[in-house]
């Protein structure tokens, strides 16, 4: 038995039966990182010593019988959630040496659950990107094909889970940044409802869209992790005081009572690869065979989601990133003559080009004379997109679609073509604009052996329905044990 290949569910069983210890499991994961991360470059920081200390504590807790399903489980964290005493860079030069003095709420919750935090995972700088090429430090590679992108911005999280370099990971999703890399790397990733998980201690990109969520090897594993991190937090005034269901207990037999909506427009969407279209069609048939009723639905404004998103997200980003000024923390230019020069030099040297591009775009769209035409208009269209979903969910329980229009593409393909990269988010970012939850679950492979994901979206705070459909779909197609050739 290779311990690093275990799912969280399996490892939890073995830990509780004392068949393995958390120290053994953590050592196996650290050895796996040592063996394969040279090829993939998923980790920015590996905290081997810290992880083993946490594992020892977890073993003690397991011996006293006060364990949770995450006690002793080695997890990786996208490097934009603050971890006290452990460097948190956001994959940016401007935060290269930043050591947070506090834990994000999700980290506090994982620590309270007894999880073992192995290290911090690569991403597009400040989560701006869909490829993980826009990291200031390294390009992460897709474990299924080392010349391909792992997706992004949580590309390090998805690649690490796919390559068994952690049992599960946390990512964040502002326009698809959990679901799209999960799809490209053949793992499961869920973006919860906006407000379901506290953003306290999450480095902000676009605050009305950002949401933390788990990536795992199976649907059940993501349910276990979401259950641990979800719930109201007084430190995040946008977190919602909604009760957190027992997600990991959700299973049920068949989908006879479930109505699945299929958006009429997706199959004609710009740039949809026929292999992705075919995989999603097969997935829909599988879901039907489980008893679900499929109906056509219409989301008339979805064509405008990318344009609305690429106004709203850069506007919020330009405001959020104003805090990086070289005064209180982070990089500072060495020899400025005055304060203004310090701001300008610090920011232009500290931020990479995709981040600067979005700051300029957002600042432009918010500047005098343009606000109504851009931010105002996009915010109205956001209402229309939200209403579309509300109308659709009057007649169905979930909506299925592709996650990404193509399988993972070659590294470098969109590096100087931001619009093409933005358009690859076409199926995912509506969920962020509307605040609804969405899960990506593997549904097949391309002819080149690249994973393809299926997206299932649901009503606000109905992640339970997503887990139910995804779990039964996963069981029906049984591809979860296929591993990347490393």
């Amino acid at each position, binding site marked *: 038995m290779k311990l690093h290949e275990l799912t969280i569910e399996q490892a939890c069983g073995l830990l509780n039966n004392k068949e393995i210890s958390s120290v053994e499991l953590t050592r196996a994961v650290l050895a796996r990182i040592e063996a394969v991360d040279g090829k993939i470059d998923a980790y920015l920081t590996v905290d081997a010593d810290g992880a083993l200390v946490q594992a020892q504590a977890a073993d003690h807790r397991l011996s006293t019988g006060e364990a949770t399903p995450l006690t002793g489980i080695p997890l990786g964290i996208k490097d934009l959630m603050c971890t006290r005493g452990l460097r948190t860079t956001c994959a940016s030069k401007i935060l290269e040496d930043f050591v947070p003095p506090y834990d994000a709420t999700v980290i506090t919750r994982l620590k309270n659950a007894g999880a073992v935090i192995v290290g911090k995972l690569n991403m597009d700088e400040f989560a701006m990107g869909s490829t993980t090429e826009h990291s200031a430090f390294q390009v992460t590679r897709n474990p299924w094909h080392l010349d391909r992108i792992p997706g992004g911005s949580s590309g390090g999280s998805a690649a690490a889970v796919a390559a068994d370099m952690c049992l599960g990971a946390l990512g964040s999703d502002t326009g698809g940044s959990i679901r799209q890399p999960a799809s490209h790397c053949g793992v499961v990733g869920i973006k919860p409802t906006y407000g379901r998980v506290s953003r306290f201690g999450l480095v902000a990109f676009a605050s009305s869209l950002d949401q933390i969520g788990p990536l795992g090897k199976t649907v059940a594993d993501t349910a276990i992790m979401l259950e641990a991190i979800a719930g109201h937090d007084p430190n995040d005034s946008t977190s919602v005081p909604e009760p957190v269901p027992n997600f990991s207990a959700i299973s049920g037999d068949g989908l006879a009572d479930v109505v699945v909506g299929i958006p009429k427009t997706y199959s004609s969407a710009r740039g949809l690869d026929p292999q992705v279209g075919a995989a999603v069609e097969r997935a829909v048939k599988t879901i039907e065979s489980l008893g679900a009723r499929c109906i056509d639905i219409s989301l008339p404004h979805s064509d405008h989601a990318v344009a609305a998103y*690429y106004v709203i997200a850069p506007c919020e980003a330009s405001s959020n990133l104003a805090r990086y000024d070289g005064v209180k923390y982070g990089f500072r230019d060495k020899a400025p003559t005055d304060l203004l020069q310090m701001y300008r030099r610090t920011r232009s040297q500290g931020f990479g080009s995709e981040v600067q591009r979005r700051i300029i775009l957002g600042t432009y769209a918010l*500047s005098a004379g343009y606000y109504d035409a851009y931010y105002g208009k996009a915010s109205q269209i956001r209402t229309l997109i939200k209403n579309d979903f509300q109308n659709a969910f009057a007649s169905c329980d979930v909506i299925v679609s592709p996650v990404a229009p193509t399988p993972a593409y070659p590294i470098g393909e969109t590096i100087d073509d931001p619009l093409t990269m933005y358009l690859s988010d076409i199926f995912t970012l509506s969920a962020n604009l509307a605040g609804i939850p969405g899960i990506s679950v593997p549904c097949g492979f391309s002819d080149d052996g690249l994973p393809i994901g299926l997206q299932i979206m649901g009503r606000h705070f109905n992640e339970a329905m997503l887990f139910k459909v995804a779990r039964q779909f996963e069981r029906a197609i049984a591809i979860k044990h296929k591993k990347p050739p490393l």
Partner: protein
Amino acid sequence: MKITKEEVLHVAHLARLDIDDADIDRFSGQIGTILDYVDTLRQVDTTGIAATSHAVNLTNAFREDRVQDHLGQEASLANAPEKDDGTFVVPKVL
């Protein structure tokens, strides 16, 4: 050109960014392409549609006004690029 080099320079100044000539050209081209695409939003009639700034609207998220543990001065200053006697140090302002 959708956005001129002068506009890029003006916006870069507002955003406190120092960008060089090569980047000004590159950004004005790329941002121009993005803005052309964003302009498709004008085709949508939004008369009378309210704006959404948050998908899940919460108002008045109050909590009790109670003294709690907070970061002390030392922890707050721990990441400062330059500090002195419990304060952040910055270059001259004027």
